[in-house]
């Protein structure tokens, strides 16, 4: 039994975590809150060493140092554009660690209490699902594999069979806690995790990260139950509950149900996108023509997308906007909630480029303004202005609220090629007679545009 002072210490840690999450409701308090959370984590580890007096102290400390170095290097080196895949990866290793801890519990303790055995089985299964699912998510976001939904005939049958198999093994484990049954359960969990994420299309992947995040939280909570550790129980439950709600909020922002996101492609229908560019004619123009359109407009709205961030063109864009301002053009940025690779990702990317965030306007706030706008300049975005979300029930993004760029007088797309966006579907707006395309790398195009603007 752990001493009372340690339990009180764990309580303090738990409060630190709650404060950390709470502080994230405002950008002003968020950073301090995160530091408080980190302090809570350090406290928890120190208490654990003091209260449990673990054997093998040296190897454990070495493992801690290796993990710390790995975590710091990984998170320092990563580009802001790669943030979502890093979060997925961190979540995966967390889920993996939880599953391993539960497996070891099985070997060590003769868990005769049924509830504890159920919690152990749950941790192993869901931890493995979270780990494998996160790895596939990472591969999709890093574009190591196709971002489009992957299905094969028999997937639904295999998936259901694995679920039932997992359930049966879980029951077996509860009645007869043997390590090899646990290992088998772990393997089934890995298979379920892969099959869960494969059919999810690119644009929906962030929601899956959030869901898997919630899963890992719940496994940590179950692990806490097994170990009789209140801190793990509280922290895991917090993350599980917060993650579930966040998943639902994000799914709402996309106009979809979580079920539809996970199983839409499996159930069939034409959710698979075209994937290739068609050869229909489009209107393209040089930077000079586009500069004239922009320079003589009264009102311009800019729709930034992931392509802008990848080209590191934020600074050039900001210069262009300043030039337009100095010519008396009214310019706003329109930010779609899921622009980039994850909700709120674009805000992070533009904040990095020091675009003043008073100029950034949220979708609901700006959508009414497109009707009275002369020119919409879409930089490296595609899916968030795709009218298919409104008009084409078979499109994978159908139902997602979009920026009403198609209501403006003119639309200019800065694009590298006719390749479809992350969701893998064509954008009708590209073929609209009011649309002009300027092909090229976003930074290159914006530089030329800026130069041309100064001469018109």
């Amino acid at each position, binding site marked *: 039994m752990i001493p009372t002072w340690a339990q009180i210490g764990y309580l303090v840690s738990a409060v630190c*975590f*709650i404060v950390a*999450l*709470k502080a*994230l*409701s405002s950008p002003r308090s*968020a*950073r301090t809150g*995160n530091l408080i*959370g*980190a302090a809570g*984590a350090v406290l928890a*580890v120190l208490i654990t060493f003091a209260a*449990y007096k*673990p*054997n*093998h102290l040296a190897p*454990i400390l070495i*493992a801690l140092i290796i*993990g*710390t170095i*790995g*975590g*710091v290097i*990984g*998170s*320092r080196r990563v580009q*802001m554009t790669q*943030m979502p895949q890093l*979060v997925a990866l*961190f979540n995966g*290793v*967390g889920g*993996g*660690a939880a599953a*391993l*801890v539960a497996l*070891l519990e099985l*070997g060590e303790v003769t868990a005769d209490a049924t509830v504890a055995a159920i919690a152990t089985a749950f941790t192993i299964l869901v931890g493995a699902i979270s780990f494998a699912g996160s790895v596939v998510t990472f591969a999709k976001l890093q574009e190591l594999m196709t971002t489009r939904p992957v299905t094969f005939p028999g997937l639904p049958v295999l998936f259901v069979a694995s679920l039932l198999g997992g359930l049966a093994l879980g029951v077996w484990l509860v009645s007869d806690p043997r390590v090899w049954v646990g290992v088998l359960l772990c393997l089934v969990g890995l298979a379920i995790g892969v099959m869960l994420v494969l059919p999810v299309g690119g644009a929906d992947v962030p929601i899956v*990260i959030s869901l898997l995040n919630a899963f*890992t*939280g719940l496994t940590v909570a179950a692990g806490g139950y097994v*170990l009789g*550790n209140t801190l*793990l*129980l*509280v*922290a*895991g*439950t*917090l*993350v599980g*509950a917060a993650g579930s709600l966040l998943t639902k909020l994000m799914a709402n922002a996309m106009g979809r149900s979580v079920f539809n996101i996970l199983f839409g492609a499996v159930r069939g229908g034409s959710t698979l996108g075209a994937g290739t560019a068609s050869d229909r004619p489009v209107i393209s123009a040089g930077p000079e023509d586009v500069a004239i359109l922009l320079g003589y407009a009264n009102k311009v709205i800019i729709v930034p997308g992931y392509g802008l961030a990848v080209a590191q063109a934020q600074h050039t864009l900001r210069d262009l906007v300043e030039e337009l301002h100095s010519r008396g053009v009214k310019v706003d940025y329109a930010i779609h909630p899921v622009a980039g690779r*994850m*909700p*709120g990702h674009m*805000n*992070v990317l533009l*904040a990095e480029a*020091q675009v003043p965030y008073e100029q950034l306007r949220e979708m609901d706030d700006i959508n009414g303004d497109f009707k009275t706008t002369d020119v919409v300049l879409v930089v490296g975005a595609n899916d968030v202005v795709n009218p298919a979300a409104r008009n084409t029930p078979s499109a994978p993004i159908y139902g997602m609220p979009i920026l009403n760029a198609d209501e403006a007088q003119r639309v200019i797309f800065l694009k590298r090629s006719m390749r479809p966006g992350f969701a893998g579907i064509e954008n009708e707006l590209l073929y609209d007679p009011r649309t002009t395309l300027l092909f090229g790398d976003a930074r290159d195009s914006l530089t030329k545009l800026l130069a041309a603007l100064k001469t018109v």
Partner: protein
Amino acid sequence: MSESIALLTIFVLAAFVGVEVISKVSSTLHTPLMSGANAIHGVILVGAIIVTGATNSVIVMIVGLLAVVLATVNMVGGFVVTDRMLEMFKGPGARKKELHK
């Protein structure tokens, strides 16, 4: 049995707190929120240390140490990356000061 009821009570209350604390977060901060929550579940590290420290079996120790490494990466990396993101949401005043440096 009373202990498991106590744990169950904690579980239910924590679930309500979890929902309550994030229900008002704006979509602007969804990415850091996800990453912050991610860092918090890295606390499984505590469990990994307890299990590893209590064993006499070499195999258990090796697997346990692996769990310690993974959980530490999760926790440390999660907090550092969240901090990096939040650093960018400085107010306009703070930003100006930095430019003048």
